[in-house]
């Protein structure tokens, strides 16, 4: 096994991006993700890459647009209010089918909010990252190792499917330091980008990157084609399951909440409650089939999230509201405790499968 190094989550993302071949990083500082920019500022000049602190988030995302159009592996990172500012650019990236990686290390909102960890951009990431009909791949790491691994994967998926991919973390995952094995970064697949704007040199037909279509017929056809592609992408939906096999209470949580839930599940098991965990690793595509399958055995669900109940909607949709779903949440930068999750599991264990959660 390769030697492990201690890294902050934010640093692991930056190192993974560099190892994935990203040589164009455009950012604008914001807590709690600034270590990504700091890491890039230190490393990029030494490896012939570009670190550019843009004049604003809008500028940064449009620089990503330019670099991606030229076929380069490129990334930008920010935190909640900064990601909101990038929304227009994200829509353009999706509209032009440009591979790119966007990192959101979430903090409490709405507005400027606070600087403590949060998951309140779930809707923004999975539903409404910008105007128009489109999706982004959204990956949700829960350890520093995954911050590294999923960043590598984000670059790969973005190139493979020609679409933007987001790493959706939170302030705690950005700041926590854990051992990381970075050896996977030595084995990177690259893709031929014959669509990129690299200059024709008079030898080929010119490529065009454009999102303006005044013919409704043409635009509709493009959207249909893009959504056919999304059908393919939906196959990458995946989860990490923990003690799910015989679980009567299924906890659904992503990111740092999944780790808190694991502790609570261990205690619940010791107390004789058959609890298990489904941790969505991909938030878009959402692992709806995995959830639906779990509902066949489970009596009740508990959703743990650091928001006012956003992912819970995907859980209820996935299981067609066939089981009661309890919400265990904190918001504004507060983090659910193991005890609170345990209490929710205990409450859920008392429910019969048919009972409606609204009556609790």
């Amino acid at each position, binding site marked *: 096994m390769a030697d492990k190094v*201690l890294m902050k989550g934010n640093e692991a993302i930056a190192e993974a991006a560099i190892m994935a071949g990203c040589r164009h990083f455009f950012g604008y500082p914001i807590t709690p993700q600034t270590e990504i920019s700091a890491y890039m500022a230190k490393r990029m000049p030494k490896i012939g890459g570009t670190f550019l602190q843009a004049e604003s988030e809008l500028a940064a995302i449009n620089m990503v647009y330019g670099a991606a159009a030229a076929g380069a592996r490129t990334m930008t990172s920010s935190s909640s209010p900064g990601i909101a500012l990038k929304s227009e650019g994200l829509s353009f990236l999706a509209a032009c089918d440009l591979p790119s990686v966007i990192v959101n290390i979430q903090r409490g909102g709405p507005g400027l909010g606070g600087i403590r960890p949060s998951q309140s951009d779930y809707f923004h990431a999975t539903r409404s990252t910008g105007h128009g009909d489109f999706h982004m791949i959204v990956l949700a790491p829960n350890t520093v190792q995954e911050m590294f691994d999923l960043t590598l994967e984000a670059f790969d998926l973005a190139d493979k499917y020609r679409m933007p991919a987001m790493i959706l973390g939170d302030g*705690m995952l950005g700041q926590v330091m*854990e051992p990381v094995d970075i050896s996977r970064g030595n084995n990177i697949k690259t893709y031929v980008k014959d669509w990129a704007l690299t200059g024709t040199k008079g030898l080929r037909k010119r490529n065009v990157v454009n999102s303006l279509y005044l013919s409704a017929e043409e635009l509709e056809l493009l959207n249909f084609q893009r959504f056919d592609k999304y059908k393919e992408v939906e196959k990458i939906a995946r989860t990490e399951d923990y003690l799910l096999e015989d679980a009567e209470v299924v906890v659904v949580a992503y990111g740092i909440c999944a780790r*808190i839930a694991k502790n609570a599940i261990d205690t619940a098991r010791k107390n004789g409650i058959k609890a298990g965990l489904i941790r969505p690793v991909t938030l878009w595509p959402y692992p709806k089939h995995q959830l639906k399958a779990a509902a066949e055995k489970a009596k009740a669900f508990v959703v743990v999230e650091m928001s006012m109940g956003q992912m819970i909607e995907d859980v209820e949709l996935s299981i067609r509201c066939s089981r009661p779903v309890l919400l265990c949440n904190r918001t504004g930068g507060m983090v659910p*405790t193991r005890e609170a999750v345990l209490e929710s599991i205990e409450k859920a264990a008392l429910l019969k499968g048919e009972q409606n959660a609204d009556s609790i």
Partner: protein
Amino acid sequence: MSQTVEIMIAGFGGQGVLFAGKILAYAALMAGKEVSWLPSYGPEMRGGTANISVIISDTPIGSPIVDNPGVFVAMNQPSLEKFEEEVQPGGLIILDSSLIQLKVKRHDLQACYIPATKLAEDNNLKGLANMIILGRIARETGLFDLDTLYLAASKSIPERKKDLLAFNKKAIEIGYNY
């Protein structure tokens, strides 16, 4: 036997609690253990209180948050007042008795008093009370020997500050052997 130790070190910003935690984390990494290092970040870093949570375990770590430390280190009085009640029964509190006049109130845990700041000043190691405390943590918990700590310190200290390594080692040793 599988073992998990949850450690919290708290003090003023600038006392080096994050750095002491980082060396602990490196020592754990070198000992082949699972480890997480989680700072309380934010405005505290600008002169207020700061604390660091380190979990060292033989098995993968769930939540990196330490709500109830088994080992709690107070490097100033507000930290002791804030966290004493949160320490696990049967746990350990280590405090810098040159900065904290209070005694540990609880009787269901072990208390260790070490005048780290004064020891640092007396030995021309001003600012290295955190390293003295670190040595004491290792000795009290039996987690790491001196050589592992030295190695972890040399890993944690950046190249441009390598001339300070000897002072750090000396401070660790003073705490370890106190």
